[in-house]
């Protein structure tokens, strides 16, 4: 009987702060919002600004968005699918860009090339932010 309160206290401290799905989904949709939901305002704001600036510069450089599928060898298709996942990981900014008709042609030149890499980089950084928010939510870190 004496061990019961200790066991229930242990469960209470290891329980997630919020729904993990909600934290990850909100963090995906709006970069840094998962942290804001968990009360980490400073970190959330820095992540939001950093990821959004990276995405915005990619757009200003006219970086083309990756399209899944299409013809080509295995490596080309792997790059297309990987790039598409990276683009999609940015969340709402990516969806808004697509919805607003952002579809620059894939032209030769270093600026569009840098732009497409920055858009993918923004998505990959947002994946890191989502993993961090998940770990905070599951109390693996502060």
């Amino acid at each position, binding site marked *: 009987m004496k061990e019961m309160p200790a066991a229930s206290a242990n469960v209470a401290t290891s329980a997630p702060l919020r729904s993990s799905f909600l934290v990850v989904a909100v963090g995906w949709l709006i970069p840094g919002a998962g942290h804001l939901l968990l009360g980490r305002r400073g970190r959330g704001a820095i992540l939001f600004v950093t990821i959004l600036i*990276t995405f915005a510069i990619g757009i*200003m450089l006219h970086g083309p968005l990756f399209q899944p599928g299409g013809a080509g060898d295995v490596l080309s298709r792997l790059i297309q699918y990987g790039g598409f996942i990276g683009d999609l990981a940015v969340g709402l900014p990516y969806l808004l860009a697509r919805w607003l008709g952002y579809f620059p042609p894939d032209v030769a030149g270093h600026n569009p090339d840098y732009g497409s890499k920055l858009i993918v980089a923004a998505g990959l950084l947002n994946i890191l*932010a989502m993993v961090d928010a998940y770990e905070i939510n599951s109390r693996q870190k502060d």
Partner: protein
Amino acid sequence: MRTKLTHGKKTKRFLMSLDHFEMSVLFALVCSVVLGLVTKRTDEARLRYGLYCFGCFMVALFGIGWFMRLLHG
């Protein structure tokens, strides 16, 4: 920073133009900020790790740059 590039008869206007060095520094900066934020537990450790990552990026950038220059003679 506006620039105008011409591909054949078509003229493409970019809102912004970066050279390779500017792009590398920008990439190093944003990656260092996020890596510092998500990997460490205290603010001081985050700042230190972010600066460490940025320093590593810069060492690699200049190191590889000079290495390629020496390769080309």
